[in-house]
């Protein structure tokens, strides 16, 4: 099996490295969506706590 000349082997190697890179990128993207979901729930929570504190201050005074 003669070694493939550069220009024919090149795309295969490139494809392989790109595939690897893409998979890691997709993984990071999925983790990013999870992060945004966490961010939203966190902001909701802080909202609730603030409301509760305000409610606490109102009847506190």
């Amino acid at each position, binding site marked *: 099996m003669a*070694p493939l000349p*550069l220009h024919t082997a090149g795309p295969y190697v490139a*494809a392989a490295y790109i595939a690897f890179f893409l998979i890691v990128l997709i993984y990071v993207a999925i*983790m990013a969506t999870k992060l945004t979901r966490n961010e939203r729930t966190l902001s909701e929570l802080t909202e609730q*706590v603030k409301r509760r504190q305000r409610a606490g201050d109102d009847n506190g005074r």
Partner: protein
Amino acid sequence: MYGKGLRPLSLITAAAVALTLAAALFWAPNDAYLGFLQKIFYVHVPLAILTLCGFVAAGLMAVAHLRTRDPRWDMRSYVAIHISLIFGVAVLITGSIWARGAWGHWWVWNDPTLVSFLLVMLLYATYQPLRFAIEDPERQARYASVFAITAGAFVPINFAIVRLAPAYVHPRTLSNISGNLPGRMQVVFYLALFAVTLLWITLWRFEMTAKHVAAQLRQLQNLVGEASDEAPARRSAAPSLTHAGSVS
């Protein structure tokens, strides 16, 4: 806390991966037999090794889980299998690209490593459905650990047995390729292995941190929010750390 050493770790990993890419493409000589195509090995073989080691590591973590009954070990085993599965997909894709380049078709049966790898991936693909099919979180964790140990033991055995089948006589199988590489290629191969190992550990720590944050957030939600009596019946394959109150 899982996030502590994450930043320096990811910096080192990024550097290692960049160095590997440069060395593999420019510094290492072309393979006498396969030519430029051989460069795929610097990403394909380390990924395969890490995937299999990841599965075995997950099996050991599962042993620790069954012994200590600490749900954190179940979480570690779950994340290890999850990362290894992702690496495994990358291995199968780069493997078929390599087969396409070397023999002209997307899948070859005569390479025992590739075949036994596909078998292991098929087995671990049932890990998530198994977890999803069990509702009680504690039993889900325990059954998942039993699976992880059995499958973890299967990986090395299967790797050995499939090689015994005589049909697989192929000059350039993965094993002897990574074994006796000439000088420079050997160095680059080990560099690649080191970089991919670092990548595996970084992603594992990354996901552990993410899961830990999510668990703490849910606990916070229960504390602050008008905790509805019935926990949200959102079934998930992922272990929820809160059920054992062990979110430190």
